[in-house]
């Protein structure tokens, strides 16, 4: 604590001492200190303006507009996120939605063309009732299983190769049909009896634009 007065005295001396005039008046000493005090006063004034006026004003404006800033940030983030999305995904998804039945009730209409296709291949197709398969909650697709019995038409001279062709049609990727069971029986006369179980997808979601 002894150093404090000495330090203060030295500072006071540095600030106010007038050379060769130890008895200088207070006014003269203040005049002497002015060149040093002026920048200090200017710094104090600027600091006061910054921390007393400017910064609180900026903080208040930011706080008042924070919801709008958050909104702007959210919009920018969404735009950036959507820019990174694959543009063809949307088209592929739209095509998929257009191709799939909207619900389970639409499945028979999916099967009808296959009946014609089977006939074209020389087979008669008979589809059984539609049975729901277990589905995950929230999954966009649901599946239903359909049993089908196929018999060669009387004029079908190449049942084996036509069956392979029909199976190829049904199993093609764009058919969106999963064959999960195939049973082929041939009797002693060489007549074929074919059973298939087909898993058919349909839409389980409600599109966002519908909401």
């Amino acid at each position, binding site marked *: 604590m002894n150093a404090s007065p000495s330090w203060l005295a030295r500072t006071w001396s540095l600030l106010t001492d007038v050379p060769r005039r130890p008895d200088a008046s207070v006014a003269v000493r203040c005049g002497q200190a002015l060149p040093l005090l002026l920048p200090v006063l200017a710094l104090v004034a600027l600091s006061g303006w910054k921390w007393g006026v400017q910064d609180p004003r900026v903080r208040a404006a930011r706080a008042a507009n924070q919801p709008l800033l958050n909104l702007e940030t959210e919009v920018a983030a969404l735009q950036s996120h*959507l820019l990174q999305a694959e543009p063809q995904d949307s088209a592929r998804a739209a095509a998929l939605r257009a191709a799939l039945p909207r619900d389970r009730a639409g499945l028979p209409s999916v099967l009808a063309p296959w009946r014609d296709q089977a006939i074209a291949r020389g087979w008669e197709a008979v589809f059984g009732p539609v049975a729901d398969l277990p589905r995950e909650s929230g999954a966009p697709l649901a599946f239903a299983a359909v049993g089908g019995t196929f018999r060669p038409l009387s004029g079908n001279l190449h049942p084996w190769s036509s069956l392979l062709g029909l199976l190829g049609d049904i199993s093609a990727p764009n058919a969106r049909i999963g064959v999960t069971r195939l049973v082929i029986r041939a009797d002693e006369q060489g007549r074929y009896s074919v059973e298939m179980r087909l898993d058919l997808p349909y839409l389980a979601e409600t599109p966002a634009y519908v909401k």
Partner: protein
Amino acid sequence: MNPVLLDAPPIPAPPASPPAAPAAPRAAASRRAGTAVGFAWLRSSLEATAFLRGVAGETWRAPGPVRSFEEFEQAVAAALAALSVAGGDAFVLLEQAELRHRTESAPGSGKAARSYLAARVARQEEDGGALLWSAQPTATSRPDASFILHLLPAAFHERLARCLAARGLRLTRVFPLAAPLALELADESRPRLLAVETDGATTVVVAAGDRLVLARTLEACWTSEAVRVGLEINRSLLYAKQQLGTAVHEVRLLGAAPAVAETRVRCGEGREIVAGRPRPADWLERIAALSPRHPGNLIAPLLQREARQAYLRAALASLGWILTVLFAGILRSENQSAQAEHGHFALLQREAAALRAARDALLAQDRQESQDRTLLRAATGARIPAVPRLTLAGTAAVLPPEIRLTDFRVERDAKTAAWTFRLSGTIEADEDTARTLVAGLQDKMARDPLRAHFAEAERALAVLPPAAGSGSPGLIGFTLGGTLP
């Protein structure tokens, strides 16, 4: 004995005193022009010489005694008027009772000796107040360095400086009388003694060239105490002989012509005794040639301290202004940013509704994108490979003509997603051939592309009874089963 100036009562000003109104601009102009005034204030006598760029000009001598500061101030005013000097630098050659001289021995040299002397001065200051001091090294026969300390009370200097400042003069040098006397003795290398009488006091200096031996001031003069002065001069000569190792052969008495005979009687054996008049103007000229930083200048440390302080003040002020300017620049930049931000806020407020609508549209689009991705992922993940078709085609490709399939089954377990298969058929051959054919079929189906894995438990080979009335040999029935990748 002279009165001590610091305690002397003020005396009335002489009627012819010039006005004491210095013109600071003129003083500054004089300083810039290199004008300086030297004052030789030796006890009660005062002599002033004007110097222009170091060249001595006119000299003015005070008509009466100058014993007090008031008289000094008036004399200075008169001198300036007589010399036509408006201001500038001033230096003083001083010989007063307040200016004391001491011989000090200091251990070591350089800084150590100076620190020692400073400590000695500090002890003196404890008794009599702040002192200004300078030290002249002297020749000595002792191992320690020896110095003559000149000590001047700081209060005396302050009054002196104030008197001069009142006349627009800036005091830059204060030298004791011994300084120019030592310089005069340095002109010749042989040992000499110089004694100067100044109004009741006698200053004695002995030197051999630039080797100063002693410098002292006796409070006595020839006219009143000739015997004592003679004795002291004799003692000084003996001391000088002791320090120099050789006798001093020349004694010069300035301002004491009548005492030559007395001095010759007392200490003139084999010595040249010369009389002369004091020449303050010459001494002032010698002093004028010395730098204010000369170690003999009593106020040199004060000037250095003032210069350091002025430098520090200027540096601090510069630093303060630099910081202020930098800070102001930062604040200006921040203010511009704040204004830009304010404008941005205003824009946001104006377009808040549009932003919300855009956000909602983007959110809907994002939800749609997310659903699209989920749907595509689900569609891709849920795609069931065409294992039945591939197995059927693969089996048909490797099936030997001797084997006739009667039952072909491929199934997928919904829980485990594993594929199993089962084949049944007949072979029209003997049992060994049938076994070989089945083994061959198994081997081919186990390879690419089917890579079927057969379960031994499901493998069966049996001889079937021939159909009644067919007449054909018996058939071998077989069953194979397993899993598919």
